[in-house]
Every structure is written in C-alpha cells, then in structure tokens.
C-alpha cells in the first residue's frame, strides 16, 4: 500500500509579530519598574516638599514635582504598582466571569441563555458609577473597592461578547462533529467552543486596559478608589488636570504612563490574537 505524500506545504505561524513583542516588552518594562520602584525611584514615596511645589522638570526632578512638591517620577513608579494591580485584577476577574457565563449561555441557548443574559442586562442597566457608588458605600473606599466596582460593571460586556461569539461557534460543523464523536457537552464547550470564541474577547480585553485605568481614576476622583497617600496614575491625572495649562508636567507624565501601558496592552492583544489563530501566518 502506498501512502500518498501530503500535497500542500505546511504553513506555520512565523515569528511572533514584532509589534506584539514590543507590546510585551513594554508591559514587562512597566511591570518591572513598578516592582523595582523602591530601588529605581530617586526619592521616597509620598515625601511632600512645599519648597519645591510645582517645580518644572530639572536635573533634580526629571519629571518635575506636583503641588505638594512630590517628585512626579517617583510617584509614577510607585503609582504603576496600584494601576497595574487594578488593571490586571479587573481584567482577569471580569473576563473570567464574563467569558464563563457568556460561553455557557451561547452554547446552551434556550432558557439557560435567557437567564444568564437577563442577569447581564440587569448589571448593564445600572449606570456604572451608580453601581460603583453603591458598592463603595458597602465596602468602603479603597483600591479593592475600585477593583470590585469596576469588575462588577465590566464583566457583562465580556459575557455579551462571548455569548454572541459562542452562539455562532456552536453552530459550526466541528461542534456537531464533536457531538457525533460522543464528546460530552462540558468537553465540547471546553475544547471546541471556548478556544474558538476567545479571540475577539482577548482583543477586547487588551483594548480595555486603558479604559480600566481611566475608570479607576474617575473612581479615585470621586473618593471611591485609591485615595491619598496611595500613588495611582489616574489619581495623579485627576489631581494635575487643573494645572495642565500652567504646569503641564504634573498631568502629562502620568498621562503618558497610562498611554504607553494601554498601547502596550493593545499590541500584546494583537499578538495574542495571532498566536491563537493558527490560520494567520505572520510574515
């Protein structure tokens, strides 16, 4: 018996996308600078110096100082700890809850989908800040409160996205084929529906990183999230916005930290999309 050779050459995903690598490298850099803040920061955290209030960038203070005379670079390095913690925690919690419920709803359909989607609608019907306020009243203002409050209003979007994608995936022939092979429903979901539904959710998660930082900033501004003396990028932007026209460095540098981090997450998301889709060949 002659075995026929494979006719089509194998196409493998090539090198990891360069921009995605840049994104990953930037996230590692930001994370490292946050972790190593006590060693990297030129000054102690939260050391007010009224004599140097709103000093512009100089050799002594590379990123200038804020109203209290604190070194902006130091605050940014320490603030990265809080901001990254909030981003990672919110996106992890909300995506795990949202994707789990969404995929189950999308695959099961019928009454299961109806129940899960109506719960989702209830959460979406509440204005995010109102829900956050209510949670903050119960839990008390803190970074943890900010994380819980943002995650509580964030997961329904992932649930809806995952449900619509999973409902579409559930009708694909390979899902029918799996059922025809006797694969139990939980395994069909885990091995076929979930992996083929993840790509748009992961891209959305990566795009949301910047939004989470800014929402955390809004909560801090309302006194519901991070509060003085905790350093947090969003809080720094909120506090510095009054001085933007006269003392631009107070708001610009933390704003740039948010921008670079959000951009890095976006690049990484694009890379993840490529890695999870074996049909895409990266040149």
């Amino acid at each position, binding site marked *: 018996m002659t075995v026929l050779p494979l006719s*089509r050459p194998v196409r493998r995903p090539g090198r990891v996308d360069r921009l995605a690598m840049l994104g990953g490298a930037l996230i590692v850099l930001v994370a490292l600078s946050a972790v190593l803040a006590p060693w990297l920061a030129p000054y102690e955290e939260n050391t007010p110096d009224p004599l140097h209030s709103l000093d512009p960038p100089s050799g002594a203070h590379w990123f200038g100082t804020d109203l209290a005379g604190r070194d902006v670079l130091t605050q940014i390095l320490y603030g990265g700890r809080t901001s990254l913690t909030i981003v990672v925690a919110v996106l992890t919690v909300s995506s795990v809850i949202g994707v789990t419920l969404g995929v189950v709803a999308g695959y099961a359909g019928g009454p299961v989908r109806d129940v899960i989607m109506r719960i989702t609608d209830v959460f979406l019907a509440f204005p995010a800040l109102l829900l956050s306020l209510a949670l903050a009243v119960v839990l008390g203002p803190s970074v943890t409160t900010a994380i819980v409050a943002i995650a509580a209003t964030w997961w329904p979007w992932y649930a809806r996205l995952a449900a619509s994608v999973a409902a579409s995936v559930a009708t694909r022939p*390979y899902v029918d084929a799996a059922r025809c092979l006797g*694969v*139990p429903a939980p395994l069909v979901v885990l091995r076929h529906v979930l*992996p083929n539904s993840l790509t748009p959710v992961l891209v959305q998660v990566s795009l949301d990183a910047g939004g989470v930082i800014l929402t955390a900033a809004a909560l801090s501004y309302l006194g519901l999230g991070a509060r003085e003396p905790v350093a947090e990028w969003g809080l720094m932007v909120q506090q510095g916005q009054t001085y933007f026209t006269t003392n631009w460095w107070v708001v610009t540098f933390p704003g740039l930290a948010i921008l670079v981090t959000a951009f890095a997450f976006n690049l990484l998301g694009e890379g993840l999309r490529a890695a*999870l889709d*074996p*049909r895409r060949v990266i040149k």
Partner: protein
Amino acid sequence: MIEVRDLRVRYGTRTVAHVPELDVGAGECVAVVGESGSGKSTTLMALLGLTEGAEVSGYVRVCGVDVLTAPARRLREIRGARVALVMQSPEAALSPTTRLGVLMRRALVLHGVDAGERAMAEAVEAVLLDPAILRRYPHEVSGGQAQRFAIALALALGAEVVLADEPTSALDVTVQAEVVGVLRRLRAERGLALLLVSHDLALVSTIADRVLVMKDGEVVESGPAARVLAEPSHPYTRELLEALP
C-alpha cells in the same frame, strides 16, 4: 447494524423525515438520495440521536442500541466508537484551533482506545495518508485529506457503521474518486456498514447495494441500487436520473 422502522422526525406539526423501513447490515452500503431539504441528513442525525428540538418516534436500533430510548450516556458511548459520521464539509468539521493528531488522540482516549503514535499512524496510513498529517492544523490540509482523515478517525475508533453525509460533494472529481475508493476498500476489507447520504446518483451507482429515494421527507422509492437506478418506478427518481449530466 442499522434497523429502522417507521421513523418520523417532526418539528412542531411538520414531518421533515419519515422512513418506514431501513436496514443496513455489516459490509453493506445503503444510499439515501434526494434533493436538498428532502430529509436525508435529518434521518442520519436521528440515527445518532442528535435531532435537538425535534419530536422523534418509531424504532431505531443502531449497533444493538435502541437510539430513541437509550440514556444519553449510552448514546455517547456508541457515537464515534461504533457509529462514525463523515460530514459534507471535511475541513469545516475539524476544529480550526486543534491539530489533527490532538483531535484523534482526544477521541481515542475518550473512548478508551489505544491512542499511541503507532496506532494513530496506522489509522491514517490505512486511508493512504502520510502520518505527518497528524501534526497539521485543519487549514493546512486539502479537502480530500481532511475527508480521509475523518474516515481514518472512524477506523481508529473501531467504528462498525459509517454514516456519510454527502462525503464527496465538497471535493473535486479526482479527490472524490480517492475518497470513494477508500470507502469501498474499507467496506470490503473490514465489513463496515455504510449508510451514504447523497444527491450524486453517479457516486451512488458505483458503491451502493440498495437505494432509498426521499422527497419532501418521505421515501418515495427503495430497492436494490441496480434496479432502482436502471428501472425507476417513481417519477421523482426518473427526474433525478434525467438530471444526471
């Protein structure tokens, strides 16, 4: 291997498939022919107990299991392991994020069959495929290779019955011949019972022992393939034959 009596599949008040009698023994090939929407594929899915939302009545026995009354667990045990389905779009029937080898290993492990490299290689070699295909993703193989892989999977699982739903309609002519050749050989060598759903009468004439002709959910004619295709008694069968190029 397959025994069907008065099978009716209804969605609401509409009967989409009614098969009074259908028997397929070991080593036999029975073809169900008819145009799109005639109830052929629904009949196949009913044999696997996978007609969600439909009301199914009658008597359906596949590999000794009463499909309409057996518990879900019992049905899962025979799906794949004893009754395999070869689908119309071979590439679409394989999960795009899973390598073929992983797919095969998972199915073998699920049914407690030897999932060793050697066993998997033998299964794909039996359908004239290079074992290197096991390291590939579905988009990296041709339609004919994907279809033969589906048959290899059925073989590896030790299926005794193969339900083939338009197995060649998505393939070009030369690949069609390859797949038909593989099915014919396996039927002869391994005694596979083959239930073929097709609207391709040319294919049916080369492989089927008996034929059921369906129209609007009803069987309008049945009998030995040679007789039905040579001397059709129903006008619809004649229409189908006249439509042959």
